[in-house]
C-alpha cells in the first residue's frame, strides 16, 4: 500500500476558444483535442512517451466519437501504448478529469497523465428523426424482404426535414441553462448592473493577460487563431447595458437581467493539463507550477426542492474547506467559472447569507465575503468563452501558472455543471 503523494501540475495547453459557428465551425472535437494534446506533448517534449493515462471528454459528442480521447491520443506523437478514456460531467468534465488523473497519481497507480476536455457546438451531432430512427431499426431487424418493405413503407418525406437536434437545456425542467440562471438571479436579487460590471471586468482582465503575454506558454494557435475570439478588448459598460435580456421570455417576461453580454456564448475549443508525481517531473526535468491538493463535488435537488440549478458549488466549497481545515478567505486567487455573471454573484451572495449557510449548507455561520480583487484576475469564461468540457483545463492551467508566478499561495476553483452539479478544487504551491 502506497502513501498518498502530492500531485504536481506541470503545465497546460489549450487552443484559443472560438464562438460557435465561427472560425472552428468545420473542426471536429477530435481534431481540436488532438491539436491541444499535441501542443502539450510538444511543449514538454513527450514524444514517444507512455503516459499513465489520458482522461477527458466532451459534452456534445457524435456516437462515432465513443472513444474520443483514445483516438486523439493515437493521433499524437505520444506512445500508442498510452491508455485513455472518456468521461462526461457536463461543464465539470475538465476538472473532474484532472481529479481522476490526480487521484491515480496520488495513490501511486500512475506517475503522470493528461486531463482535458473539448467541445464544439458548431460540429454538433444531429440525429435522424426519432420516428424514422425506429423504422430504420425495425427494418434492420426484419427477417424477410416483405417485412423489410413493409417497415420501410412507413417512412414519410416529412421525417427527413425534422431531425433530432441537440439542445442546451435541462431534460427534467425543460428550461434552458440561461432560464435557470435567470431564475437564480431573481431569487438572489442580483442586479443587471452588477452582472454587467462582472462581465466587463472579465473582458478587461483577459485582454490585459493577453497583452502581458500571460498565455504565451499556455496556448497553441489553431487554424490561424491565436486569441479567444469572444474577447472584446474594447468593451464598454455602455455597450453591455445596451443589450436586451436573452432568457426572460418563459421565466420573467420583461424583467430579465441576463443578456448575451453577461452570459457565456456557445463556444468551440479544447484544453488539457499535464499532471505528474513530483519524482516523475524531477526525473524529466520538468517544472512544477502548483499542486492539486483538494477536490470536492456536490449536487443540488433542483427539481423537487427547486434549488437553483447552478448552486451546487456553494455546497461543494464549504465541504472541501472543512476537510482542508481552512476558511473561504484563506486564498490568494479565486477562479469561479463564469457560466453566467449571475451564477458567480449568486454563489458569492449565498456564502454571505447567514440563513442560507445555516439552513442549506449546514454551517454554523456564513462563510463570508471574498476579496473581489482576487477573483478571476486573468479573465474567465464570460470573456474567453465556454466550450463546456474545456473550461476545467483552462482554469487549472491558468491558476497553476498564477501560483507559480507568485511563488507560493493557494487558489480555489469552482465550476458549476448541468444537472445541478458542482465541481471544486484547491491548488497550492
Amino acid at each position, binding site marked *: 500500500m502506497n502513501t498518498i503523494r502530492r500531485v504536481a501540475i506541470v503545465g497546460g495547453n489549450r487552443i484559443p476558444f472560438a464562438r460557435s459557428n465561427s472560425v472552428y465551425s468545420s473542426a471536429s472535437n477530435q481534431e481540436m483535442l488532438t*491539436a491541444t494534446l499535441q501542443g502539450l506533448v510538444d511543449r514538454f517534449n513527450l514524444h514517444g512517451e507512455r503516459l499513465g493515462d489520458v482522461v477527458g471528454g466532451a459534452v456534445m459528442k457524435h456516437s462515432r466519437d465513443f472513444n474520443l480521447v483514445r483516438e486523439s491520443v493515437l493521433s499524437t506523437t505520444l506512445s500508442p501504448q498510452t491508455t485513455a478514456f472518456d468521461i462526461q460531467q457536463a461543464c465539470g468534465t475538465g476538472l473532474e478529469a484532472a481529479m481522476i488523473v490526480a487521484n491515480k497519481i496520488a495513490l501511486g497507480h500512475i506517475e503522470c497523465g493528461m486531463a482535458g476536455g473539448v467541445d464544439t457546438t458548431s460540429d454538433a451531432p444531429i440525429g435522424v428523426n426519432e420516428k424514422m430512427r425506429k423504422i430504420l431499426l425495425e427494418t434492420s431487424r426484419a427477417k424477410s424482404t416483405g417485412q423489410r418493405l413493409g417497415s420501410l413503407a412507413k417512412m414519410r418525406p416529412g421525417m427527413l426535414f425534422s431531425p433530432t437536434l441537440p439542445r442546451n437545456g435541462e431534460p427534467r425542467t425543460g428550461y434552458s441553462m440561461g432560464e435557470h440562471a435567470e431564475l437564480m438571479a431573481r431569487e438572489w436579487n442580483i442586479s443587471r448592473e452588477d452582472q454587467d460590471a462582472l462581465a466587463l471586468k472579465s473582458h478587461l482582465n483577459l485582454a490585459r493577460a493577453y497583452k502581458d503575454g500571460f498565455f504565451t506558454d499556455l496556448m497553441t494557435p489553431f487554424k490561424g487563431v491565436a486569441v479567444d475570439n469572444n474577447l472584446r478588448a474594447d468593451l464598454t459598460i455602455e455597450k453591455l447595458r445596451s443589450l436586451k435580456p436573452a432568457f426572460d421570455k418563459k421565466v420573467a417576461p420583461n424583467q430579465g437581467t441576463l443578456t448575451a453580454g453577461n452570459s457565456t456564448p456557445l463556444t468551440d475549443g479544447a484544453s488539457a493539463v499535464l499532471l505528474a508525481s513530483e519524482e516523475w517531473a524531477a526525473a524529466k526535468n520538468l517544472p512544477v507550477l502548483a499542486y492539486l491538493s483538494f477536490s470536492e463535488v456536490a449536487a443540488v435537488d433542483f427539481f423537487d426542492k427547486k434549488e437553483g440549478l447552478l448552486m451546487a458549488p456553494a455546497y461543494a466549497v464549504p465541504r472541501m474547506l472543512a476537510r482542508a481545515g481552512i476558511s473561504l478567505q484563506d486564498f490568494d486567487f479565486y477562479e469561479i467559472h463564469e457560466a453566467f455573471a449571475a451564477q458567480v454573484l449568486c454563489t458569492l451572495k449565498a456564502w454571505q447569507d447567514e440563513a442560507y449557510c445555516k439552513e442549506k449548507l449546514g454551517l454554523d455561520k456564513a462563510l463570508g465575503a471574498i476579496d473581489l480583487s482576487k477573483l478571476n484576475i486573468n479573465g474567465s469564461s464570460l470573456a474567453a468563452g465556454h466550450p463546456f468540457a474545456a473550461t476545467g483545463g483552462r482554469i487549472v492551467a491558468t491558476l497553476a501558472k498564477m501560483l507559480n508566478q507568485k511563488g507560493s499561495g493557494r487558489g480555489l476553483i469552482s465550476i458549476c455543471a448541468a444537472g445541478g452539479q458542482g465541481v471544486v478544487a484547491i491548488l497550492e504551491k
Partner: protein
Amino acid sequence: MNDSYLNFANSAVGAKLADALGLPKPIVLDRYKEGQPVIKGSLLIGGGSDAPLLPTLAKIFKSIGVQTVAPRHLPQWLPLANQAGLMSGRWGVDDQPGEKVKALVFDATGLTDSTQSDALYQFFHDAARSVLPCGRVIIFGRPPEKCANPRQATIQRALEGLTRSLAKELKRAIAVQLVYVAEGAEDQLESTVRFLLSPRSTYVSAQVIRVGLPVGAGGTPSDWNKPLAGKKVLVTGASRGIGASIAEVMVREGATVICLDVPQAQPGLNEIAAKLGATAIELDIGAADAPQKLVDAAKADGGWDVIVHNAGITRDKTIANMKERFWQMVMNVNLSTQERINDALVESGVLKSGARIVCVSSISGIAGNMGQTNYALSKAGVIGMVQSTAPVFAKHGVTINAVAPGFIETQMTAAIPFAMREAGRRMNSMSQGGLPVDVAEAIVWFANPASSGLTGNVVRVCGQSLIGA
C-alpha cells in the same frame, strides 16, 4: 494607366472565360494601407537541423506581432518562440498539413553542404499548397562570397535557383525572396523582414537581398508606422508618376519632403508640393552647377537625410538612328548627374552619417531593350554606381541602394503601343504591371533608419519579370 484586363479577369464572367481559354489570371494584389498590421495571417517557419537565425527571427516576429507555427521537423522553434514571448505551436497534427498560412520563412543559414538540402525539400514540399494568395516566402542564407569554405558557399549560392523557381511555381501573387544575412548582421534584419512580409513588397519577387554589418548611424524607429519622422528627404523628378508617388509615401512615413523637378514641370511640381505640404525646388539637375546648388540648399536646410534619384528620361531610337544629342542627354541626366550630385553631397558633409541614397535603375539596364541603348547604358550604369560607391560612401556612414522597376503603370508606359504594352504587363509572375506606389514602398524601405545593413543592393520591382531574369 488602367489595366482593364485585370478587372475583367477578376469578374465573375471574366474568371470563367479566362479559365476556359487558359488566359492569364492576374489576381488583385494586396497593397499596404496606412496603419494596417504587417501581415494578416500566420507564418510557417522552417529551417535546417542547424538553424542559427531562429532566435533572431523569434525576436523580430515578436516585435512585428506575427503569429507563427512550425512543422514537426523544427521542434526547437516552440521554446525559442515562448522565450521571446511569442505564442506558437505545431503546424498540422497527425502528419496532416495545417491551416493555410500567409508566409513561409526558412532559415537556411545553417546549411554548410549540398547534401543538406533535404530540409528544403521537406519544408517546401509540405507547405507549397498551403500559402494564401498574395502570400510571402523568405529564405534566409549566408552571403556565399563571405562563406568560410567552398562547400558552404556552393549550397548558399544554390538557394538563388530555388528562390526563383518557387517564385514562378507558387503563383497566386505569392512573392519569394532570398535574404543573405552576413554573420553578425542579424540585428539589421528587422526593416527587411517587415518590408518583405508586408503588402508593401507586393510587386517585388525573386529578389536576392544582402544584409550586412551596419553602415553609419541608424537605429530602430520608435514608431514603425512613421519611421521617417524628422527626416528630410529630397526626391528628384517628383512632379508626376513614380516620383510623385515616392514623395507621397515618404510623407506617409513621416518624412519632410523636398520635391525637385525641372522648370518645365513646374505646374505638376507645385501641385504635388502643395498637396503634401512639401518644399518645391525647380532645378535642371543636368546643369553643371546643379550639384553645388543642391549642396547650398541642403546646408541652408540643416542637412538632408535621404536622397532619391528618381529623375530620368528616355530618348528611344535604335543606335543607328540615334542622334548624338539624345545619347548624351540620357547619359547625363540618368547617370553622370547622379554621380556628380552624390559625390558633392557626400564630400561636402551635408549627408551625415546615417544618410541614405536611393537610385532608380530599370529592368532595361539589366535585360537590355530594343531602341534603348542609351537608356540601358545609363541604367546599368546606375547599378555600377551603386555597387562601386557603396564601400566608398560607407566610410561616411551613407548607404546607397537602387530599385529597378519593371513594367509600372504610368503615363510613360501608357504611351507604349497596345500589343507591346500587354506583353510587358503580363510577362511576369504576377501577370500584371506594378503601380508607382510599389516602387515607392521599396524606396522607403531602403530609406528606413533601421536599414543600415542594406547598401549596394539592387532590388527589382518587377513582379519577377520574365525578361532579364
